[in-house]
């Protein structure tokens, strides 16, 4: 057993392997100081909850307290590995400042109370509003961090029992475009590829996806391929010098907001050089001719003028993609949170469709998720989708769901798509949404244009219920706060980006009176006395396992079919990829292996949307276009971003993540190792821009947009000139009296992709000014990641003795 500083070395030691070989196991673990493996009373099975990778782990319990974690070598996803957030993150749950009792607002202040009192307040207000206005007054805004059973229950309560159309998750901020792009191209959500495609690919293209920081274990898999024989070549599209960019064969850094222009030029070249699999296109797709016409004039030279990427480099990239025998592509926020998000992400799918690169080992698309359980929000219908990937504009699908729930069909709103998060906020702002129930998320830091968000959440006339594990910037504004249990304190399942389902078991009791989110939702339903058509209490289930069994029935026959899974079957072994049925009891590694899609008019989840206007395609139009359910090649023209740099605001502002933190730091900010690695907000500036502005490493600067400003220390990095980057994690709960000048979203614009409705965090304009010289300090930004400094002399990010973790690499590692 070796020890390694996993703050200084986030990806751990290499275990090289060659194409087609099995990824070697490496078991990572971390135990509390003074606890040895033999001291652990029991190991309880779970998976990681601080990113979307879904790494399997066991929770160490001693004296009924969590004392550490260890990766599960048997699991297909991580083969025993864990990332820094998972190795250290569990400590947050034991913080003394957990919410342990319900709070209600009395005379302006939140005061502790009991569950009966708190729930009675919520139930009374719900009833009043249902009587006065009906279901349209109630809205739910949930998370990407609850469990499948909880989302399914919330969807049943919201869309079924109450019958409101207003339900979304913060997954809207991270994964909505992934879902939208899959629906546009394949008719239905569902990740075509598999993580194991990394084992086989000869070219891996990462589009706006800093995998090294967002999915550290998956990146270890790529690094191990790069260290082995016959390594894959990497294409990286990113305006920052990420660890991915540093390993890439080719790195393209387009100007923020111009991804679609770049993609259209890549497709232009692939078509011009006839690197097209015409047999595949002919047999399995519709719309190819539209694409050919759309990109006909869109040469690399045209794209060069828009994106600021040399035409020659674009040609090289097209050659790389066009020459691949096994092409794996991954996409994330650099595309999803940028201008023309869905249109750009769809063009990545199109590269695979025109090249016939789907459904075989190494040939796959991973439209990534940002959060650990985002996939379940989508499947279960708690995020602007209808339960079981059903189509809200297909009356038969709605009737089928009503039958599963044993409710009247009219009870389920389907006059339009479920209301997306930003529209819910707009309805709250204008006063037609009057009760907003927020679970496990922190919109007062994570949504764009925070001044506006704070004002609307604090609005008189909005009854705000917030369910969380800590006091947050959002609970501060609530009328009722409900204390929730978290990972390790409750049982349930969740599903990662490549469709792998894991069981996560309760290891310890929640603190104080905190309750599992599932129990809170079910308690609300019982107090509201919801009934099904036969007068039985609705939802008809009562705990996690009965909720899972109910969900299986709702998923039956749909692409995300869980009917072959049971809690018992998930115990002990590896995670299983859906669809998992009686016919496929071991799950399904890749979708669309036979070139058949869930795109037939009667089956598909969506008829698609216009890639520019966002208007839904009408059923008749879709049926005429795609009667046989082939994959759909949808093309779109580039349009300039809605907010571009100008004389007053000369920089393009991009916000994003760092490896060491999750979301708004409610957990990771309470973990010493993670907090020390990235303790404060910073701003990344290119060397040439910094020189021009007279700014040096560590100087205190103000970054301002037309909406707000942030004060931060400057990190001079290799970021693309003209672009500023600010991490979005930092809010005010631990700001100790700092003004409202710390959260990146003070500056971001209110704008969203018309197709996926995902807010855009990567196309605001900003200006920069020096406030105070560095006084010898450097920026509080990690040196291990995309924020690496260009200058020498900045102290390296390390974890010290507390950063040491066990690493059992067995044989073959170095």
């Amino acid at each position, binding site marked *: 057993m070796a020890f390694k500083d996993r703050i200084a070395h986030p990806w751990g030691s290499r275990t090289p392997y060659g194409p087609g070989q099995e990824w070697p196991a490496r078991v990572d673990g971390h135990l509390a100081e003074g606890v040895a493996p033999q001291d652990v009373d029991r190991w309880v099975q779970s998976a990681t909850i601080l990113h979307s990778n879904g790494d399997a782990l066991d929770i160490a319990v001693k004296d009924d307290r969590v004392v550490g974690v260890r990766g599960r070598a048997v699991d297909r996803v991580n083969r025993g590995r864990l990332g820094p957030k998972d190795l250290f993150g569990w400590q947050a749950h034991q913080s003394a400042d957990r919410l342990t009792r319900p709070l209600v607002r009395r005379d302006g202040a939140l005061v502790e109370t009991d569950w009966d009192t708190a729930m009675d307040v919520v139930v009374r207000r719900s009833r009043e509003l249902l009587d006065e*206005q*009906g*279901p*349209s007054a109630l809205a739910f805004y949930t998370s990407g961090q609850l469990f499948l059973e909880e989302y399914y229950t919330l969807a049943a309560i919201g869309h079924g029992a109450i019958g409101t*159309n207003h339900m979304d998750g913060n997954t809207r901020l991270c994964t909505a475009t992934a879902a939208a792009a899959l629906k546009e191209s394949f008719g239905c959500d569902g990740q075509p590829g598999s993580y194991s495609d990394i084992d086989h690919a000869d070219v891996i293209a990462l589009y706006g996806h800093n995998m090294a920081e967002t999915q550290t274990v998956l990146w270890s898999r790529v690094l191990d391929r790069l260290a082995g024989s016959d390594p894959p070549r990497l294409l990286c599209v990113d305006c920052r010098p990420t660890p991915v960019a540093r390993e890439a064969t080719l790195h393209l850094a387009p100007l923020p907001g111009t991804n679609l222009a770049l993609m259209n030029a890549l497709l232009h070249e692939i078509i011009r050089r006839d690197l097209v699999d015409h047999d595949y296109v002919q047999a399995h797709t519709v719309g190819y001719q539209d694409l050919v016409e759309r990109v006909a004039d869109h040469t690399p030279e045209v794209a060069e003028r828009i994106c600021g990427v040399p035409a020659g480099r674009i040609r090289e990239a097209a050659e790389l993609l066009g020459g691949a025998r096994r092409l794996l592509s991954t996409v994330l926020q650099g595309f999803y949170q940028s201008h023309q998000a869905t249109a750009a992400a769809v063009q990545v799918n199109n590269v695979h469709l025109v090249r016939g690169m789907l459904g075989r080992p190494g040939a796959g698309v991973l439209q990534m998720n940002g959060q650990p359980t985002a996939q379940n929000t989508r499947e279960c219908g708690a995020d602007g989708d209808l339960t079981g990937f059903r189509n809200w504009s297909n009356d038969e699908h709605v009737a089928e769901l009503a039958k599963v729930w044993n409710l009247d069909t009219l009870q389920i*709103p389907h*006059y*339009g*798509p479920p*209301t997306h998060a*930003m*529209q819910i906020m*707009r*309805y709250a*702002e*204008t006063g*037609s949404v009057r009760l907003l129930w927020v679970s496990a998320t922190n919109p007062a830091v994570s949504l764009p244009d925070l001044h506006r968000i704070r004002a609307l959440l604090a609005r008189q006339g909005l009854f705000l219920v917030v369910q969380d594990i800590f006091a947050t910037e959002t609970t501060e504004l609530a009328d009722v706060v409900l204390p929730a249990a978290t990972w390790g304190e409750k049982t349930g399942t969740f599903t990662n980006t490549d469709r792998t389902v894991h069981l996560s078991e309760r290891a310890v009791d929640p603190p104080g009176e905190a309750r599992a989110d599932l129990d809170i939702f079910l308690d609300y339903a019982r107090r509201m006395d919801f009934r099904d058509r036969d007068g039985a209490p609705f939802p008809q289930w009562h705990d996690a396992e009965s909720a899972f069994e109910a969900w299986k029935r709702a998923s039956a026959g749909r692409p995300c079919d869980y009917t072959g899974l049971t809690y018992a079957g998930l115990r002990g072994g590896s995670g299983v990829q859906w669809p998992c049925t009686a016919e496929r009891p071991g799950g399904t590694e890749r979708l669309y292996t036979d070139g058949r899609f869930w795109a037939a008019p009667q089956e598909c989840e969506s008829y698609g949307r*216009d890639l*520019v*206007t*966002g*208007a*839904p395609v*009408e059923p008749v139009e879709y049926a005429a276009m795609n009667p046989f359910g082939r994959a759909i090649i949808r093309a779109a023209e580039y*349009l300039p971003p*809605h907010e571009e740099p100008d004389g007053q605001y000369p920089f393009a502002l991009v916000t994003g993540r760092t490896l060491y933190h999750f979301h708004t730091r409610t957990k990771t900010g309470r973990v010493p190792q993670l907090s020390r690695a990235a303790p404060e907000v910073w701003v990344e500036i290119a060397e040439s821009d910094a020189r021009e502005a007279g700014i040096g490493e560590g100087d205190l600067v103000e970054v301002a947009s037309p909406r707000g400003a942030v004060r931060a220390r400057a990190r001079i990095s290799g970021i693309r000139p003209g672009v500023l980057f600010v991490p979005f994690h930092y809010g005010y709960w631990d700001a100790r009296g700092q003004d409202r000048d710390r959260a990146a979203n003070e500056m971001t614009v*209110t*704008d*969203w992709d*018309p197709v996926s409705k995902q807010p855009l965090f990567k196309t605001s304009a900003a200006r920069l000014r020096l406030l105070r010289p560095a006084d010898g300090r450097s920026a509080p930004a990690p040196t291990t990641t995309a924020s690496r400094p260009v200058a020498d002399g900045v102290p390296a990010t390390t974890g010290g003795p507390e950063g040491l973790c066990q690493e059992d690499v067995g044989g073959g590692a170095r």
Partner: protein
Amino acid sequence: MRIGVALREVQRSEAGLAVELRRMADEYQDEVEIHHVAQDLARWSDEHVHELAAAAARHGEDSETLAGPGRAGPGSPPDAGGLLAAGSDPGLALLADLRRLYLAAAGVSVDWELLGQGAQAVKDAELLELSGRCHPRTLRQMNWANAMLKVLSPQVWAR
């Protein structure tokens, strides 16, 4: 030939649609999707007007008699309907404006249809191609207005 009349008509209505889209973009800054998408869609109408001007010149039409985007008004706005026209409720006002926009786009669509028919009659391949290229975008503008009406109206009616 009288095809010039059809050209003039589609150019006038297309310019009016651009004005209407920009007016809505200005008016609804807080309805962010309307604000942004209306601006994007106004560019399509500008491009159409521009191309129509070139086509008109080829047909010897006096460009002075044609309405340019700078000075075209929306003409007489289609009737917004009694229910929607009334009052100062912002929700109802938005529905009324979207309804007006939909009808304006429908008018442009009809004009493209007529121009396309005319182009066939006089066997003008260039004009036919122009109509075939621009008309689908008009339909997309129309579909967008319709879709926004469908999405936004239930919340207005339910209050």
